[in-house]
């Protein structure tokens, strides 16, 4: 989230699209009710199904799964056409005026530079025109035909309301009504917030869905302002923390990158990261990359990381592929190229697309280690459960070791919520039975591995032998020890760069924040964005003062928020070019002539003059991007792409299937179905009664929603002769499931490109272990294709067929 | 052998000096007293649940819970038991022309001037009234009782129907208790009656006075054939 949960109460309009906040995030959704009750805010829901969020909305529109980009580009087109643009914001705070290279263009659904062979773009033309001084060329009048604004206008021109209706199936009058409601938020004193989740990410072009809304929000001037923002609702209580500390295969903590094979040495690695400003006077905060990176290396290897050995850069693994995401891991596993798989807090048998392939892949492992507080289907993938898990245990040789871990209520530490708040919590109970904390288990493994390396040497023992392990009890790293490590420590006195005699933090003390990190080896910091969470003031994450002098839900003394306890990202943009808040009623920050002051920590240097230093300090441009240059693999603007399995062809290019640059393994391409065989669009989702595959173990949750079902319209039920509550079989090219039929008015057939499109809703939550009735997850049906940028599997739009079930497959 | 119209096959004059008449065999008497016992249990437990002032009666059964579960089971027992009575007694309780005359002269019954009344068979109209009253009211109580028996038949009827059932059950219960009172009263008031259900016999005088046609038929049935 750019903003915080509590900030949602400041909004005038909530749009829930690509998510189902009331059901999947009911506790956070309270802030929507708060905004509705106390601010008179309106709520719009755009979703294939009339969800429980829609039940409390002011306006609802249906949409065909996987067509959000068309809807959003249509929205941008309408805003431009009807002059619903926050012009001061767009001109000053976005790259609307930047000139783009002449070669850049778009036709037939593709941008320039497409190579069909490689399924990739040559992105060199997706770039600004640079002057001789290295700075980007701009036209502040927005008259230049090559300026981003005019290219955007041209790009969205095709997305008329009629086109939206044709592609999305959203009735034109509903689209226009929503456009009018959103258009009101182009006023500087009215804001819209976007709340989304996996309904947008789980597509082969998920990142572009989110880009689409971010662009709309920028055009309305809603980024960085109270009640605005792009608010990704994270699906697990600490999934934000997971991404922050770099559990992605290509990241290290704080969104720093694991080097690739093309970056064999420190110099090459750093060269492409310390972005120089693209406009004069801009911050381009990533220029500090080396400070974070060196401090990270010092935190990892202490004295073994020195200036002489390039901070032990050679200890870091170098990626030979862009990422070892889970789709790739399971592909490799299925090819027999993985021997040992550690599965910690993860249930891939049900969570990863194409279950049949998952079973096959896990069966080829030599050893599977499952660390989980609960019994998981993955740990029992080899066990026969009739139709629910139809495997032959005698044919599976994988050894499975289960290491029971503690659950969240049994350990201490910080959970990072969607709003980036690190909230410390304390153990409420002892782990039962043989369950142990994850940190204890990992310490045991590490200590033994280190012993082996010490005894036997091996090819490259240094990174293991030299790893910093400063814990009081080496076998049990404590949560506060780990938190302090992430905050960072001064290894030598940290002095003020302007006055080297002034010691900011003495050696051995916790650094105050990442502003004190240095690239000379004098500081260590495990996760630079968390720096400040546990400094000499103590454990700031454990703060519990809920006072809010702002009245805007800032709550600065409640827990701690990264970065720097800042509650709203880009908050400098909540004030105009002169530093005056756009809306005096919701004043977060203002320029007092000398410095920024207000209720939140400014997202800019405190003395950065408003007319000179632009708000988006992480971008070398200093402004936000309507045109994202070559940063994304599938285009600098979002363009309509059909899901890989779709009932209709791409209106721009009927030869194009799915996202033209999404990575697709050959084995997976063979398992894609067509609409002739599988005429219905399926989408998957959570239900509010459950959390993933966990709560089916809980008898109370299981009683609230006991049995697997699929949702279909009354029309489809009539067409197929399906009774409410009757059994159905749903199958795709990849598998089949049996479920109860929930026949509802809440899903209505859509008309897309003259064709009737029926949607089948498939909730997750059921498996073959736990208290609830046995069932299946949607991943028995979903294709193994991921987003072009981040490889999130396409769970939200695929094709199935359905029929009344005969036989007794349901237990 | 004389045709049997007013008597049971088991009814017979057992002694002539003085006359003693067998009115009820042991089975019938046991059946009657079992029914009576059930009735009393039902009445007491029913009253307890009918009016708060009488809730204390549940103490007889060891508390309200016991009274609550006992009542319907005893109700079923009574119904079955009464069915036994019914099968034995129903045919002689069918109303006849003379019952109408008897009813018209009810004043003479009360004042003891029974010579002004027609001769009667085994049962007079009053007794028949008790019999049929019991029969119909038990039927009503049984049906409404099952509808109320929520432990075992929670889904049998709608709440609205059950409300009516409860009301009907209460009213029928009051009526059947009235019939019961009439029954006891008549048994006591009419001297010589109770022995019919205790020893199974009545005196000739009682029979002559109240059920002369019955007595006459029994005597005729016991006429020895000339050939003997």
């Amino acid at each position, binding site marked *: 989230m750019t903003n915080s949960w509590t900030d949602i109460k400041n909004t005038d309009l909530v749009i829930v699209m690509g998510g189902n906040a009331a059901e999947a995030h009911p506790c956070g959704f309270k802030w929507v009710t708060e905004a509705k009750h106390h601010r008179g805010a309106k709520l719009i829901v755009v979703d294939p199904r009339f969800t429980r969020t829609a039940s*409390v909305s002011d306006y609802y529109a249906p949409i065909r799964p996987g067509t959000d980009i068309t809807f959003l580009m249509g929205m941008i087109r309408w805003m431009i056409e009807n002059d619903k643009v926050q012009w001061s914001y767009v001109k000053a705070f976005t790259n609307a005026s930047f000139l783009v290279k002449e070669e850049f263009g778009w036709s037939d659904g593709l941008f320039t530079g497409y190579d069909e062979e490689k399924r990739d773009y040559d992105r060199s033309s997706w770039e600004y025109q640079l002057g001789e001084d290295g700075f980007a060329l701009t036209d502040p009048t927005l008259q230049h035909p090559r300026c981003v604004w005019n290219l955007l206008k041209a790009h969205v021109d095709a997305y008329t309301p009629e086109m939206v209706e044709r592609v999305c199936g959203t009735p034109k009058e509903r689209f226009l009504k929503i456009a009018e409601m959103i258009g009101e938020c182009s006023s500087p004193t009215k804001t819209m917030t976007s709340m989304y989740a996996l309904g947008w990410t789980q597509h082969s072009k998920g990142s572009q869905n989110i880009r689409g809304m971010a662009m709309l929000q920028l055009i309305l001037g809603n980024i960085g302002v109270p009640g605005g923002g792009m608010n990704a609702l994270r699906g697990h209580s600490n999934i934000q923390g997971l991404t922050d500390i770099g559990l992605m295969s290509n990241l290290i903590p704080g969104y720093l990158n694991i080097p690739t094979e093309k970056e064999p040495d420190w110099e090459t690695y750093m060269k492409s990261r310390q972005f120089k400003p693209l406009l004069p006077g801009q911050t381009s905060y990533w220029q500090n990359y080396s400070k974070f990176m060196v401090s990270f290396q010092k935190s990892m290897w202490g004295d073994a990381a020195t200036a002489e050995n390039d901070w032990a850069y050679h200890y870091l693994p170098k990626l030979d592929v862009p990422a070892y995401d889970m789709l790739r891991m399971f592909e490799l596993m299925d090819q027999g190229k993985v021997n040992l798989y550690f599965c910690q807090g993860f249930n891939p048998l049900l969570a990863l697309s194409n279950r049949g392939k998952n079973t096959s892949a896990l069966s080829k492992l030599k050893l599977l280690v499952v660390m989980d507080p609960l019994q998981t289907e993955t740990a029992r993938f080899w066990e026969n459960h009739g139709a629910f898990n139809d495997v032959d245990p005698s044919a599976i040789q994988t050894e499975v070791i289960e290491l029971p871990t503690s659950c969240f209520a049994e350990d201490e530490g910080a959970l990072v919520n969607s709003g980036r708040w690190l909230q410390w919590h304390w153990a409420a109970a002892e782990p039962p039975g043989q369950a142990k904390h994850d940190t204890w288990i990992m310490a045991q493994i590490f200590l033994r591995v280190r012993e082996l390396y010490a005894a036997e040497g091996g090819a490259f023992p240094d990174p293991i032998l030299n790893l910093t392990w400063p814990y009081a009890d080496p076998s049990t790293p404590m949560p506060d020890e780990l938190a302090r490590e992430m905050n960072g420590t001064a290894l030598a006195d940290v002095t003020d760069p302007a006055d080297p005699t002034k010691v900011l933090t003495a050696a051995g003390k916790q650094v105050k924040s990442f502003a004190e990190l240095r690239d000379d080896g004098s500081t260590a910091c495990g996760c630079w964005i968390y720096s400040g969470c546990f400094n000499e003031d103590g454990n700031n994450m454990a703060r519990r003062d809920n006072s809010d002098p702002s009245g805007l839900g800032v709550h600065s003394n409640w827990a701690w928020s990264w970065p720097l306890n800042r509650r709203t990202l880009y908050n400098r943009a909540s004030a105009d070019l002169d530093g005056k808040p756009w809306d005096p009623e919701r004043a977060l920050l203002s320029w007092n002539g000398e410095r920024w002051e207000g209720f939140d920590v400014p997202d800019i240097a405190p003395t950065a003059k408003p007319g000179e230093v632009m708000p988006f300090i992480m971008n070398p441009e200093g402004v936000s991007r309507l045109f994202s240059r070559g940063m994304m693999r599938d285009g600098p603007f979002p363009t309509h792409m059909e899901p890989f399995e779709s009932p209709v062809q791409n209106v721009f290019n009927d030869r194009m299937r799915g996202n033209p640059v999404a990575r697709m393994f050959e084995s997976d391409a063979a398992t894609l179905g067509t609409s002739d065989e599988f005429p219905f669009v399926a989408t998957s989702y959570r239900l*509010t009664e459950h959390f993933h595959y966990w709560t089916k173990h809980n*008898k109370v949750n299981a009683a609230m929603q006991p049995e697997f079902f699929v949702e279909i319209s009354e029309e489809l039920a009539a067409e197929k002769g399906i009774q409410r509550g009757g059994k159905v079989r749903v199958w795709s090219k990849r598998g089949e499931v049996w479920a109860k039929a*929930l026949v509802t008015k809440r899903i209505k057939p859509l008309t897309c490109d003259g064709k009737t499109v029926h949607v089948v809703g498939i909730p997750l939550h059921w498996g073959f272990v736990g208290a609830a009735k046995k069932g299946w997850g949607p991943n028995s049906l979903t294709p193994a294709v991921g987003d072009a940028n981040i490889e999130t599997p396409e769970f939200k739009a695929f094709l199935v067929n359905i029929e009344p079930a005969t036989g007794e497959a349901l237990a | 052998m004389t045709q049997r119209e007013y008597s049971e096959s088991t009814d017979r004059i057992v002694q002539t000096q003085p*006359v003693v008449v067998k009115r009820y065999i042991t089975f019938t008497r046991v059946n009657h007293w079992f029914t009576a016992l059930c009735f009393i249990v039902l009445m007491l437990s029913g009253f307890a649940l009918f009016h708060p002032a009488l809730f204390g009666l549940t103490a007889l059964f060891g508390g309200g819970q016991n009274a609550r579960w006992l009542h319907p089971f005893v109700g079923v027992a009574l119904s079955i038991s009464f069915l036994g009575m019914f099968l034995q007694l129903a045919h002689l309780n069918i109303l006849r022309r003379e019952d109408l005359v008897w009813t018209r002269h009810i004043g003479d019954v009360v004042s*003891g001037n029974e010579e002004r009344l027609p001769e009667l068979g085994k049962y007079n109209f009053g007794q028949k009234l008790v019999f049929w009253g019991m029969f119909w009211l038990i039927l009503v109580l049984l049906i409404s009782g099952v509808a109320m028996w929520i432990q075992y038949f929670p889904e049998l009827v709608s*709440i609205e129907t059950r409300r009516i059932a409860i009301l009907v059950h209460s009213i029928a219960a009051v009526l059947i208790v009235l019939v019961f*009172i009439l029954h006891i009263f008549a048994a006591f008031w009419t001297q010589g009656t109770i022995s019919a259900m205790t020893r199974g016999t009545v005196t000739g005088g009682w029979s002559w006075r109240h059920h002369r046609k019955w*007595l006459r038929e029994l005597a005729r049935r016991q*006429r020895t054939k000339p050939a003997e």
Partner: protein
Amino acid sequence: MTMAPDLDSPRTAVANPPVQPMESNLGQGDVVRSSAGGPVAENPRDLTDVAKLIDVSKCIGCKACQTACVEWNDTHPEIGINVGIYENPLDLTPEMYTLMRFTEYDNPDTGDFEWLIRKDGCMHCVDPGCLKACPAPGAIVQYSNGIVDFISENCIGCGYCISGCPFDIPRLSPTQHVVKKCTLCSDRVAVGQGPACAKACPTQAITFGTKDDMTALAAERIEDLKSRGYDNAGLYDPQGVGGTHVMYVLHHADKPSLYSGLPDDPKISDVVEGWKGPTKPVGIAAVGLAAVGAAAMALFTRSRVTPQDEAEATELVQEEMRGSGQPDDRGTV
């Protein structure tokens, strides 16, 4: 806001309730009505009326209230089946005192589809039909703050309350043989806490406080709903049962029955009134009078059998038996 323990009831469930230990502050001394002539307090404290307000326009049907209810009351609803609807369990049960009910409604006036979700449960009537119907003294009580509570020790499990309730709420436990329903968490209210469901509700669709405060809050909500085009928004506090201590804010207050059959105009059934009204005294009087009358008559008059009758009988019998063998001297035949 924390509540001082000397207040008679918490003002709102939204506020943080007290955390210090507190003696139960609601009990027999506050009973103003008790079923079947059960004991009531002689000088009950005049507690402020409390109420739970359920704003259906804020309710997202998440069932957190159901879950909290199960947890607090330590009930064990069975893991059932899906029959093609969102309700689960499928109905209120002795193990499930509250239930989200879902109605799919095509609004003919607006042409819009609406999904109406209502939390069902005890309404805590001012004039409770259950209490009226109950034959067991003290099994159902009403406290002076308005809470209608079932006292299981006194319950005999007859289920009359089920027939008495105009809202179809109480459920008989076939195993415990007592009837169960929402207590409005009287045991929590007694120590200054709001009901568990209100505590758990993520959107504050369920709030708890004094009836006056809740009515005022409802007025605020109704105004908001009217501004959103729900011209018939209103408060459901049905006067047919004297008002209730659980109230709804409805978008369509003109048609409560849209919400899974919420009664449009609930009142204690005339049949129940008739049963618990005239039938009881009239019946007892009739039985009493009949018994006394019969006893008196039996005492003063008697239909006697005379020796004359016996003689007549002997004569008749001999006459009818004429031609038969002589009876022996004991007259045995």
